[in-house]
């Protein structure tokens, strides 16, 4: 089972062919629902990028489009957050998770109609929600701006997906349950729990006072940690060993990483309220849990790194691997940064500055989104049965996305630190501090332009592969012209 050298299983060429036929049947069964989720995710990515650019430009040029109520900062900014969180990220995550589930259950996908209905409902919910935010009907709770009716549609759609996941898992071919499936299952149950609890406690029967803030951030942080993170880790746990043809380094590290994440993450939300009017013990407990997040992060990083060891040269050739490993490395960086930001001494400086925004994008883009790109580059050709038409577009996408996000994170981190240090100094007038952030915000707008251009290249690639343009390739579409791609 550990032979890394060929495209066959050790059982011989005949068994290898049978395996390939199995995979072909699985992929064919996934085609419609997964491509639906991927396609709509990419559409929402473009929409979200436009809102992001508008919001970024408004920070340096406040009068830009300020005459249109629908396009004021207070609406465009939550429209961006929700379009990328629910439109792009969640939709892409569901698509990737569906395919991984089918592959890892080793049976063709059944009940595809449930998923198609879920995809339609999900997009309907996001579209209604984003429009409602622009129209001014946001309910003004961060990460939960969608009004009740849109949230309800999302919840129904989500229930379909969770039910499908259970049905699928019951019909799996017997055998070992791989670590990616633990994470997908975790995410599929954690998210409805979070979403229903927060809606009932903040929207339908609102709790009073500062407890609202506690619940809000419990949800806001757990969406990242118990929904997006597990799906991205599931994808990474699949892609790295799959593309390399090696086993994942250590089963024990997988177990440790999964359970420590499950144990510590849901305590993290309180670190958004340090210094706020909530009991000291709650703040300290969330700080401790945030620091303890180093355990799953280091564990997972070791697991990925040791699996990659000796194969880093492949990053030069394989697009899927390069995007995925970029994401995995950023997971380590962003999590370590997050643990440090939870400490009171650093939080005092970074809270309420652009530093936090940089951290958020390092997590949601450099880690999560890049991982999803990697997975899509791997999965889509198998569903369409056509190779990516243009290596140039993939290359352009990677370099625009990676330099764009690095520029954004570096400028917001430095700008935020300067802002935080000056805010601590009572001798600096507030407007001077604001003026000092402007160059960094310009850099952020430019980084947004780079990212958006990258997204356009990706969307174009996706349309071209769906249309099966170009001549049929014999081998995969790679960054370099090396023949010996494993």
């Amino acid at each position, binding site marked *: 089972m550990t032979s890394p050298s060929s495209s066959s299983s050790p059982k011989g060429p005949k068994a290898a062919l049978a395996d390939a*036929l199995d*995979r*072909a049947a699985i992929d064919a069964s996934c085609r419609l629902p997964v491509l639906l989720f991927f396609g709509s995710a990419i559409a929402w990515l473009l929409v979200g990028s436009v809102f992001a650019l508008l919001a970024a430009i408004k920070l340096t040029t406040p009068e830009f489009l300020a005459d249109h109520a629908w396009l004021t900062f207070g609406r465009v900014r939550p429209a961006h957050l929700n379009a990328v969180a629910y439109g792009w990220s969640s939709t892409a995550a569901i698509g990737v998770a569906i395919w991984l589930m089918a592959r890892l259950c080793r049976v063709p996908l059944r009940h595809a109609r449930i998923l198609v209905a879920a995809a339609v409902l999900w997009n309907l919910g996001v579209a209604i929600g984003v429009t409602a935010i622009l129209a001014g009907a946001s309910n003004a709770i961060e990460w939960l701006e969608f009004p009740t009716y849109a949230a309800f549609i999302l919840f129904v759609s989500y229930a379909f997906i969770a039910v499908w996941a259970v049905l699928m898992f019951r019909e799996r071919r017997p055998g070992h349950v*791989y670590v990616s499936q633990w994470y997908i299952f975790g995410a599929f149950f954690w998210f409805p729990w979070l979403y229903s609890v927060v809606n009932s406690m903040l929207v339908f029967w609102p709790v009073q006072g500062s407890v609202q803030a506690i619940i809000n951030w419990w949800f806001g942080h757990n969406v990242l940690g118990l929904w997006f993170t597990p799906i991205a880790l599931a994808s990474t746990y699949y892609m790295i060993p799959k593309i390399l043809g090696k086993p994942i380094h250590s089963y024990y590290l997988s177990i440790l990483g999964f359970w420590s994440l499950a144990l510590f993450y849901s305590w993290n939300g309180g670190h958004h309220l340090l210094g706020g009017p909530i*009991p000291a013990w709650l703040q*300290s407990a969330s700080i401790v849990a945030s620091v303890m997040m180093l355990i799953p992060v280091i*564990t997972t990083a070791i697991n990925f790194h040791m699996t990659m060891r000796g194969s880093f040269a492949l990053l030069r050739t394989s697009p899927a691997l390069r995007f995925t490993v970029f994401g995995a490395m950023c997971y380590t960086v962003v999590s370590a940064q997050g643990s440090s930001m939870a400490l009171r001494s650093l939080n005092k400086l970074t809270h309420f500055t652009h530093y936090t925004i940089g951290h958020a994008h390092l997590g949601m883009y450099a880690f999560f989104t890049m991982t999803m790109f990697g997975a899509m580059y791997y999965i889509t050709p*198998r569903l369409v*049965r056509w190779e990516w038409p243009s290596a140039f577009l993939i290359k352009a996408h990677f370099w625009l996305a990676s330099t764009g996000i690095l520029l954004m994170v570096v400028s917001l981190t430095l700008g935020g630190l300067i802002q935080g240090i000056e805010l601590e100094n009572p001798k600096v007038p507030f407007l001077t501090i604001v003026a000092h952030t402007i160059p960094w915000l310009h850099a952020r707008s430019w980084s947004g332009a780079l990212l958006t251009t990258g997204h356009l290249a990706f969307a174009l690639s996706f349309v071209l592969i769906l249309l099966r343009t170009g001549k049929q390739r014999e081998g995969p579409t790679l960054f370099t012209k090396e023949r010996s791609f494993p």
Partner: protein
Amino acid sequence: MDPEKKPSPERGASEMDVAKVHGALLREKQEPCDGMAPIPLWLMTAILALAFWSGGYLFFYSGGFRGDVFNESQIAWGYAPTAPGKAKDPLAIGKRVYVANCASCHQVTGLGQPGTYPPLADSDYVNGPSSRLAAIVLNGITGPIKVHGVVYNNNMPAWKGLLKDDQIAAVLTYIRQEWGNKAGAVAPEGIAAKRAAWATRSTPLTEPEILAIPPEELPGTSSAAPSSDGTPPGKAATAAPVTPSR
């Protein structure tokens, strides 16, 4: 996308057109599986160190896991420094109860509304015997009542169903010592006694009924007028211990 290209789900090459299997699938590696490398010793050590740090952090900065400690540097293990029981300032509670329940008629200034609601500032009913004042708040008033020579004809609701003994005691203490009033603090047990005495009364009192109540101070009521050094007499009430440092 083309349904004809869809391979049959049955397992086995015989039913499949092998040529139709996509190249990406044929060159694909095995499905991922697990290696069995042990957890490195240094990682276990680091985890133990983190756990040790966490315990220490929670010990020093958890505020004793109390819901009312907001300053993490205040070590508040064990009992509160003010000994058993809840110690709160009756004037602060009284002010809160007053603002929430009474101020809409009697106003935060305690002056009432001319012609409609009587003033509490400098009122004989407020500064007079606490037995009558407690009866008014517990049962409410109906019909005309004369304050400072002005007749007010209105209704005041009964509060015995809405406020607890300590809340009524606190609000009475507050109105007896605010706006220049200088009467003694009222204790919760006095209100409890009055509440029991008036338990069967279900309609508001009238002015003659109030004046018929024997003018006496309730048990636990401090007789002290405010001392000359400006210390509010509420702090002297024996039955209502006071937090020293909040």
